[in-house]
């Protein structure tokens, strides 16, 4: 038997080659190169000078970086906790609901389909102080008209809630799939033993849902660390930097004067290490709880 270049021995390499070329050129090589760039300083993006770990030292001692990092932590924790709780609650309600479940599920999913840029634009208009949907509704029931995007604390709350709005339907679908994987017989046995709805939830549903919850927490964490687009069009990072998160910090250092490629790359490396660390921690803690 002849082994041509299209034979089963060579074919797999040819099949995987295009994908690996793209991954190599646009993900793996840039990742390595990004670390390399973080060791250089550039004169507004022109000449490069090797500075070793100076960029990292500058980041660690920069008040601006720590401010942005602190805001990012508040945002990530707030969004991940809210998303996980809300998606679980929504999935439990949807799972129990028979009539109109498909339509309700679709309704909650629609915001996930809207471009993050448009999400930012729509909410920017909806939260407009005088004329927006939200304050008009609040005033109609006799409540005040806060400047949602003008107060730093409120604006942080707004970007968390809008983030929740865009993704809760997507995560609820994942939780729904997890719920449907739970053996129905367990509930019947529990009912015979006299367990009420609340006890069934606490003793059967939530423990058996833990692997799904872990997936939701991990994905939501990665997404939250990467959030940029809708914040960029909703608040632009303001007011006075109150919603400037680390990704925007990296974006501005890379593309807005003064351009600091090395500093931006160092911040990128730090972000990657943090995301990797948090994901690994989530995974390990989640797995340990499962083992108990």
């Amino acid at each position, binding site marked *: 038997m002849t082994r041509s270049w299209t034979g089963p021995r060579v074919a797999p*390499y040819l099949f995987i080659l295009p994908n690996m070329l793209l991954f190599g050129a*646009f993900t793996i090589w840039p990742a390595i190169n990004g670390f390399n760039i973080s060791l250089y300083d550039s004169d507004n993006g022109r000449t490069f000078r090797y500075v070793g770990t100076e960029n990292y030292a500058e980041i660690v001692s920069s008040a601006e970086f720590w401010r942005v990092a602190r805001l990012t932590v508040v945002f990530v924790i707030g969004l991940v906790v809210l998303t996980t709780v809300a998606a679980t609650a929504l999935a439990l309600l949807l799972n129990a609901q028979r009539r109109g479940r498909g339509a309700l599920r679709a309704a909650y999913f629609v915001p996930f389909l809207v471009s993050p840029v448009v999400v930012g634009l729509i*909410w920017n*208009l909806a939260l407009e102080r005088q004329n927006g949907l939200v304050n008009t509704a609040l005033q109609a029931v006799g409540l005040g008209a806060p400047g949602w995007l003008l107060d730093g604390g409120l604006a942080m709350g707004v970007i968390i809630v809008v983030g929740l709005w865009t993704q809760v339907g997507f995560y609820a679908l994942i939780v729904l799939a997890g719920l449907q994987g739970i053996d129905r017989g367990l509930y019947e046995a529990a009912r015979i033993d006299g367990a009420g*709805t609340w006890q069934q939830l606490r003793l059967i549903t939530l423990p058996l849902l833990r692997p799904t919850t872990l997936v939701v927490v991990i*994905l939501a964490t990665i997404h939250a660390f990467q959030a940029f687009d809708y914040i960029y069009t909703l608040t632009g990072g303001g007011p006075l930097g109150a919603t400037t998160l680390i990704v925007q910090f990296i974006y501005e250092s890379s593309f807005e004067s003064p351009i600091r490629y090395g500093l931006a790359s160092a911040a990128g490396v730090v972000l990657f290490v943090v*995301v990797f660390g948090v994901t690994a921690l989530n995974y390990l803690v989640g797995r340990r709880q499962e083992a108990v």
Partner: protein
Amino acid sequence: MVLERAVPAPPTGAPPRRWTSIGEQPPAPAAVVRATVLVAGALFVLAPIVWAVLSSFKTATELAQRPPTLIPQNPTGANYVEALTAFDFGHYFLNSTLVTVLATLLTLAVNAMAAYALAKYNFRGRDTLFLVTLATIMIPLQVIFLPVYQVVTSLGLVNTLWGMIIPAAATPTGVFLLRQYMLSLPDDLIEAARIDGAGEFRIFLRIILPLCRPALAVVAIFSVIWRWNDFLWPLIIAQDESVYTLPVALARFSGQLVVPFHLVLAMSVLSIVPVVVLFLLLQRQIIAGIAQTGFK
């Protein structure tokens, strides 16, 4: 006497109500609360979108009016006409469509081939390549866009639609999802085709791809959602107005000193329509796809 006892006592007060649409039993209070919460929540979630759609049919003066109106007083499609003609949004719409369609086709081709190699062949380095593929999920674009930008520059793709299409084409989630699906296909099919003398690529094209249609559909839909809505990367690549995609154009226009809100609203609504229609048409496959993989 016995008979009398068997007949149930007539209800006192009002006769029992019948919820004919649900059945003989009146709904439990908990079910009513649940349905109310779900419907009210859905209305809250959809309210900003519905409001934006309604507002896109208002004139610029009505948009600025105080107190604001909910339903447009004189509904007009003028915003759409003006946005598409005077502001060249039709061109951005076309750019978005081109990028979305071409990138999705490329993603499907490249990911399906890689997934097939990983699922159905035993070759040196397979497990390493699979792990490398999975690990790239952990590397977000935001962290590496600067060096990616350098690569794209050196290839001469800055300021071109190809610069938006090619770099994002190889997606780890796509490879993973397709590989999982292909693992479930029987190896005998491939063996039989080989005995019949079919070449490896022919087997992939004629046997594997048609069988993978459901998984390909899910990858295609997610690719369309991502590419259509993608912002950060096109924002970096598109420096010239002629290659703006919709999200880039919308962000640029809303960043102006005097924002033409009536036009921005019309275009925002227009940008939502294709993906929502696609979702509603293919809802079943999308949900099954998410359920099958957990989108891990």
